[in-house]
């Protein structure tokens, strides 16, 4: 445990709701993690490139527009293609219960829905991150 956990907080797609992403980013930072926030409108390719360049341990994505089924699995796939499958991937937003099993199957480790406490996100990341 020499270096802090590094997290990329990302907003894939065209969705502009970033309150949740920013609140989570701040909470992770306050919990001692190093956080990079991408800002809005990132393509899956851009997110993967940033994740690799920043050498992060975790990619945390947020979507409230309903495009999660399309965009989350894409990010997972491209990360795999780039040989970075050891990065922990989590997602959050307005995501219907029915969609969660499919997203987990695609490789998103956990989905956080509205009302989640940031402390739960922090704990999940600490317990599931694979150290390099």
């Amino acid at each position, binding site marked *: 445990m020499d270096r802090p956990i590094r997290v990329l907080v990302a907003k894939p*797609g*065209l*969705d*502009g*709701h*970033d*309150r949740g992403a*920013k*609140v989570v*980013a*701040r*909470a992770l*930072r306050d919990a001692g993690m190093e*956080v990079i*926030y*991408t*800002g*809005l*409108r990132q*393509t899956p390719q851009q997110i993967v490139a940033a994740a690799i360049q920043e050498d992060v341990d975790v990619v945390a994505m947020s979507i409230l*527009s*309903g*495009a999660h*089924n*399309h*965009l989350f699995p894409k990010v997972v796939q491209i990360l795999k293609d780039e040989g970075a499958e050891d990065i922990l991937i989590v997602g959050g937003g*307005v995501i*219907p*219960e*029915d969609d969660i099993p499919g997203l987990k199957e695609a490789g998103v480790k956990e989905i956080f*829905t*509205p*009302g989640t*406490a*940031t*402390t739960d996100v922090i704990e999940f990341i600490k317990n599931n991150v694979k150290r390099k």
Partner: protein
Amino acid sequence: MYDKEKLDQIKKSKKDWEEKVVNKTLEKYPERLEEFKTGSGDEIDRLYTPEDIEDIDYKEDLGYPGKYPYTRGAQPTMYRGRLWTMRMYAGFATAEESNKRYKYLIEQGSKGLSVAFDLPTQIGYDSDHDLSAGEVGKVGVAIDSLADMEILFDGIPLDKVSTSMTINAPASVLLAMYIAVGEKQGVSSDKLRGTIQNDILKEYIARGTYIFPTEPSMRLITDIFDYCSKHVPKWNTISISGYHIREAGSTAAQEVGFTLADGIAYVDAAIKTGLDVDAFAPRLSFFFNAHNDLLEEVAKFRAARRLWAKIMKERFKAKSEASMRLKFHTQTGGSTLTAQQPDNNIVRVAIQTLAAVLGGTQSLHTNSKDEALALPTEDSVRIALRTQQIVAHESGVTNTVDPLAGSYYIEAKTNEIEQEAMKYINKIDELGGAPRAIDIGYIQQEIMDSAYIHQKEVEGDKRIVVGVNKYKIEEEPPSDLLKVDPAVENLQKKKLDDLRAKRDNNAVMEKLENLGKACSSDENVMPYILDAVKAYATLGEICGVMREIFGEYEQSVRL
């Protein structure tokens, strides 16, 4: 409002009461909390008395409804004359599907339409653009060209309804499409009534559907002001929005302060282009949020009205009363809804509806109980609309104008919010105005700080959210949520292919070229956009031309 002698007596007797009665009670029964705070986190006193409003001058600070400074309402008779417009924001999937929902809402008593566009439409991409993948028809209806717009309003006479369109960066294009549909129906543009949101500054601050950099965006907005003042005189050319600022986590006073600061920037920009303030200011409208703290919200609406009136009169030297009168739309607070025990949201929305009505709103959208989970179903939309109808017809609050006025607390709170909002406006002036304050991230940072404090309070159980951090139950995931068929994307793509094969592509090219030239000059772009729209140029093509000339906005990313 009180003479000095009376006031001294009140002060003295209040002190007596505190010392003799309150303190004794507190010894036996301490209060529930160490400090009591509003929804926005401002401290509240135990009791408000005439002492708290001793500086109020009735005529000057409150006055009469429909008269400066409009504290008590925008119109003289308010809801005794006409109820607010019950306007339900709706739109999803294709133009055909949304057209059906609009007709349903009109049947159910909705008096005005409010169109939600999907994200590609809001950001100026056609449905077949790479970046549109996965987003088509999701948060609103997909509109690629005039052909879609014709279907959207099929069978809805545009001289009979008023239509609000939540569209910002490409507002000029969608307005042009609306004008073109009107023409096809035989309704001339001077008869069209409605609103375009057209508020780019809050997109940079909080909502995120920007396209162009600040300067050309402001130019597009003032082009619309100018065009509409001549050709679409009944159209509200902008809806200066605090709604999304509040959703992003601001306090009530920040909502007022930042929104009015944006308003100041638009008025400044329009005056700079040579427009007379009284020619466009009466068509400015506002859009606020209604959260759960009923009394704080009522005070907020009243404070916003009074402050804007003063700004227009004193700062911009408006002469027409209509320029000073703040009219606003309200939407209940989406971020106050919980995914847990969603039926509870009906109650929250009812409280927020009361806040908006007691605050004197001109129109209202009520959120549906399932909106923390998905887009609302038809059933839940009906309950939300019925909530407004119950407040309108059963609660009795509509029978007299501004019924909470004169409450010591409401008036003190109205003063406080006005003063706090003014502090933000002064600070933004010091920074060089709203566009500059946004560029350096000041406004975003202030909002984020408030959002983070709120989250910490909820997680620390300092703020109770029923069903989330208290009164929790085990519940089954809800099963009857609305789902947008993923086939919509392919359907839109096919419509686009057909359109491009059918239309006169040479004419489209020519109109787009003309538009490009207008963008590079200082001519008003509206007529050129209208020409391109009528030739069935797509939204993506039109915005593409403008992207090339204007460039794109780069967000200042900060935590």
